[in-house]
């Protein structure tokens, strides 16, 4: 690919900022969670771009391995997080994060 690395990193940064905005602005807990996934994904994009910039050299594939681990951890995080959201919905009947400001059930 003949695209300068700066462009890919800029796209990664833009996607990350959009994820941050989603966390700050939205109050639906599931959408906030999806924004976090967006941020993880933009970080993965930057990692892949850096791995590509280190090529040739098969050692650069360590970046790919790191992205693989990030995806696995994200899968675990989604499982636990969605279970938490379901548990909160069971007690509060709402997943609006403004309604869940008190820790006591």
């Amino acid at each position: 690919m003949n695209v300068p690395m700066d462009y890919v990193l800029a796209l990664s940064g833009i996607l990350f900022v959009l994820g941050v905005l989603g966390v700050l602005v939205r109050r639906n807990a599931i959408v906030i969670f999806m924004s976090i996934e967006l941020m993880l994904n933009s970080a993965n994009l930057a990692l892949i771009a850096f791995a590509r910039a280190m090529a040739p050299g098969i050692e650069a594939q360590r970046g790919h391995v790191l992205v693989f681990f990030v995806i696995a951890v994200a899968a675990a995080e989604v499982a636990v997080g969605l279970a938490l959201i379901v548990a909160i919905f069971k007690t509060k009947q709402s997943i609006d994060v403004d309604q869940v400001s008190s820790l006591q059930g």
Partner: protein
Amino acid sequence: MTIDLILFFGIATIAVISAISMLVSRNAVYSALFLVLNFVAIASLYLLLNAAFIAMVQVTVYAGAIMVLFLFVIMLLGAEKVETSPSLPWQMPVAILLGLVLIAEFAYVLFGRVAQVGGELVGVGEGFGSPASVGRTLFDQYLVPFEVTSILLLVAMVGAIVLTRDDRKESR
């Protein structure tokens, strides 16, 4: 303007527009579907960056498994329409201001050459990023982290089951 550049800008436009649509759509189901589109766009970007294995993992795990889980929970809770009026009127402007500050910092790091990135890309070696090659790296050098990941996934599964278990059935 090479074909790669055209491809990159097309995919990047799709990714950014789908991310923005995810943020602004009122219905959580639409948000999830726009996020799937975003993940697929980024997966094709991985293909452009010679990361074939990671692109396939992205499509199967992220766009497949994780987003199906999201959609399942959204439909289970019937939570696609909740969004009350904002109780903090200054929240939106402050969030946009903070986002602009973050973009400015990214631009400073990227174009102010604080971080030494960029330069021309050279060609990749044979099999770079292919499943066989990444798998060899994974199992030669990162076998222990790989196994720890499996334990992590097991713990997450147990945690999810414990969190969503119905306590009233236990006492019966």
